[in-house]
């Protein structure tokens, strides 16, 4: 808090002069950086297209309504594929994430010097690359189809699940582990009876949370050829079949809302 004297009277101010000047300087630098960024974007934009946008949007909107409901017949199968990519991808990711998490947690890792950095590296590299990029790559390696999407989703989810899981493992109550160890239990028995029951709720929560995210992501994987409803979306976009596009977008929106509802219900039941 700062007080300045104006005409012999003390006036309260939130900050003193130097702090205020520093804050203004920061704002100026920030504004300059933003203006430069905007200049870059503006230079790369075809402005006539921008001014034309309302007409185009109205045109596309007009073509997209009403959605072509009869196309729904062809969407059930891709929808089933999308669900499978999300669910099986989550299951596979969890199977791989559990050992990685145990290797990454400080209190359960076999070797803090050698194994833990490797586990952390796996977590970081899987987390920094988006599932769409993984899919792009796997389509080239495994060929287009559901299988590439499945692998992409599971690789992407390993890091996320393992990170949350190892944080849960590090926060367990050590006294329970000690009690089990005191009975003469082996390393595996300690894990099964001392650690697992403590992280089970976190594990279930993470699984459902990631499943929800995976369902969202698997709806667009088809854009790069990795199966699911995105394939239909790409086909409809490429042939400018806007009534089909609007139907697919509605279906995706509905699937996302339903998955969020399911995950909220399940997490509510667990916690």
């Amino acid at each position: 808090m700062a007080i300045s004297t104006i005409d012999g009277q003390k006036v309260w101010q939130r900050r003193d002069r130097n702090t205020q000047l520093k804050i203004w300087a920061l704002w100026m630098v920030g504004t300059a950086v933003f203006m430069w960024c905007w200049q870059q974007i503006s230079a790369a934009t075809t402005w006539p297209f921008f001014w034309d946008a309302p007409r185009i949007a109205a045109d596309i909107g007009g073509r997209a309504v009403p959605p072509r409901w009869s196309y729904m017949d062809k969407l059930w199968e891709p929808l089933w594929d999308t669900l499978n990519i999300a669910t099986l991808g989550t299951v596979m990711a969890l199977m791989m994430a559990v050992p990685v998490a145990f290797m990454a947690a400080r209190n359960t890792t076999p070797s803090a010097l050698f194994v833990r950095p490797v586990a952390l590296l796996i977590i970081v590299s899987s987390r920094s690359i988006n599932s769409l990029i993984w899919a792009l790559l796997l389509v080239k390696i495994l060929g287009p189809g559901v299988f590439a999407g499945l692998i992409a989703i599971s690789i992407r989810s390993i890091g996320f699940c393992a990170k949350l899981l190892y944080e849960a493992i590090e926060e367990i109550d050590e006294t329970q582990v000690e009690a089990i160890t005191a009975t003469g239990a082996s390393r595996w028995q300690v894990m099964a009876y001392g650690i697992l029951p403590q992280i089970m709720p976190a594990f279930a929560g993470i699984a459902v949370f990631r499943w929800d995210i995976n369902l969202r992501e698997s709806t667009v994987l088809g854009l790069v050829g990795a199966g699911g409803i995105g394939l239909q979306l790409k086909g409809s976009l490429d042939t400018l079949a806007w009534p089909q596009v609007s139907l697919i977008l509605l279906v995706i929106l509905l699937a996302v809302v339903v998955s969020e509802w399911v995950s909220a219900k399940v997490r509510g039941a667990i916690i």
Partner: protein
Amino acid sequence: MSAALDERLGKPWKKPPLISSSGLRWALLIGSVIYLILAIYSIDVNWSRVYRGLDRGWQFVMAFAYPDFVSRAGEIKDGMIESAVMALASTVVGIAVSIPIGLGAARNISILPVYLVCRSIVAVSRALNEIVVAILLVAIFGFGPLAGFLTLSFATIGFLSKLLAEEIEDMDKVQAEAVRATGASWLQRYVYGVHPQVVPRLIGLSIYRLDINFRESAVLGIVGAGGIGATLNTAFDRYEFDTAAAILLVIIVVVMGLEYLSGIIRARVQ
């Protein structure tokens, strides 16, 4: 004799099951087994194609050992700058728009009609996938970073407004009331009573969102919305795995750096 001994020993301890109702447990187990069989059955894997692809996969893994930063250095640099510019500009605009929306979406300081409107904006923005929004905006505004910038700003609004609104709803009422008791106007009440309480969290969230926006800007290029994604997509299409590996390494390094930086800044302001 042995019956008496058994009675003394009692039953051995068994681990209590996770789900206590046995009917539900079996139903879940059988249901998931049936689902798994159906799901795995419906995925047809072309194993000969996979086998042929493994060679290419190995090439890609090897490319990480010899990433080629040089031959496409210009494209990589331009793409990264465009991604960074999009991420930064969209975060700034996103924050500027989400502060008023966040205020409106906080039940304790806004009136019901405003609350409902703001909450529905948040819900729509969160339900739509970034890629889907980007496709629509590319169709409307044409190719280029403007579509990506608008997409990321739109996604930022949903994320930041929701978390900001929750933070305002959890704030300490006493301070805001004290400021109000001095006869402050609505704006003064916000600036002196509410804002100082939420600003550390707002800074932390903004930096976290900058991090997310950069990651997302790396994929928007795949649908034509500018950024490094377009370069990456081209590299994959031309099977230039060494260039693709270089781009991926640059993305990983920048993302890790940003995450580290945001960790430091968030630890300092909170």
